[in-house]
């Protein structure tokens, strides 16, 4: 069967079509979902895409996190449905308390866009099971508010429970504590990260790699991981 993965569009979302494309390239059906409705349209998994929902007013992701569809997203996450939050979507997941900690302005105050090295720290989630722990991948990063912070106790718990999904390699791009780029929840079905896997899914349109310009497709495995997780249920 073909799995259906929903992508929620919020006012100010930017990358919902890229996420839909990534889902199709992975072999699933992409379903458009709308922030103002209480309807998940029977999808099997959900992507909260990048962008600047509500202009980052109040705090990045904060207003989107209380939008109508988020009550359904939170319920679905609670039942084990795979949910991926990318960049602004990650910010929504922490604002909705589905993931611990917070994201603040990059420590150097600058917006940053670069092809970013990541190390997979947890390959046992719904969105990372096609990687091996320790794999090094390249995914585009582009954000202004990507600094991950948490209090000492939360940070200790996140590290101790293996909930760091990805860490930045090389120079820390935004001041994130412990180089944290992405997290998962206790169950492993919810994953959020600042870099953009949906921009690394097709040769010719991805990040530069050592092999060739724009050849990086490491992001595709996020989406094929979700399909594998769904097939295993």
């Amino acid at each position, binding site marked *: 069967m073909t799995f259906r993965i929903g992508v929620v569009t919020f006012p100010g979302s930017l990358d919902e079509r890229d996420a839909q494309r990534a889902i199709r390239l992975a072999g699933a059906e992409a379903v458009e979902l709308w922030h103002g409705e209480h309807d998940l349209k029977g999808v099997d998994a959900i992507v909260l895409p990048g962008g600047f929902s509500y202009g980052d007013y109040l705090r990045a992701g*904060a207003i989107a996190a209380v939008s109508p569809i988020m009550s359904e997203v939170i319920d679905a996450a609670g039942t084990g449905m795979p949910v991926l939050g990318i960049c602004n979507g990650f910010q929504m997941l922490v604002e909705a308390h589905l993931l611990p900690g917070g994201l603040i302005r990059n420590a150097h105050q600058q917006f940053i866009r670069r092809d970013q090295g990541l190390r997979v720290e947890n390959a046992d989630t719904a969105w990372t099971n096609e990687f091996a722990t320790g794999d090094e991948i390249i995914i585009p990063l582009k954000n202004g508010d990507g600094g991950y912070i948490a209090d000492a106790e939360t940070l200790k718990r996140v590290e101790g429970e293996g909930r760091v999904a990805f860490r930045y390699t090389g120079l820390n791009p935004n001041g994130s504590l412990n180089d944290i780029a992405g997290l998962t929840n206790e169950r492993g079905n919810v994953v959020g990260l600042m870099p953009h896997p949906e921009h690394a899914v097709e040769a010719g349109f991805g990040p530069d790699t050592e092999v060739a310009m724009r050849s990086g497709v490491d992001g595709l495995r996020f989406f094929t991981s979700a399909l594998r997780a769904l097939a295993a249920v």
Partner: protein
Amino acid sequence: MPTIVVDVMPKAELLDPQGKAVTGALNRLSSSRESGSGISEVRIGKRFELTVEGPVTEELRERVREIAADILSNSVIEDVVNIDFGDDAS
């Protein structure tokens, strides 16, 4: 109509990148002065003014406290440092 003011600040122990940038700018502006700017740190927070229609009842106060804690601030990164209900009982 009464106005309720909610003040939110980034947590003291966490980096405030905006405040840090302003501190740097103040120091640059006054670098020609011998005494410097005289300001060692700037932290930037938020002020919310909530206009309410009716009287500020105890029920409303409680609702505003909840809104301040749940929506206007994120307790992971910020503190609600003051809520001014416009009277002495705040």
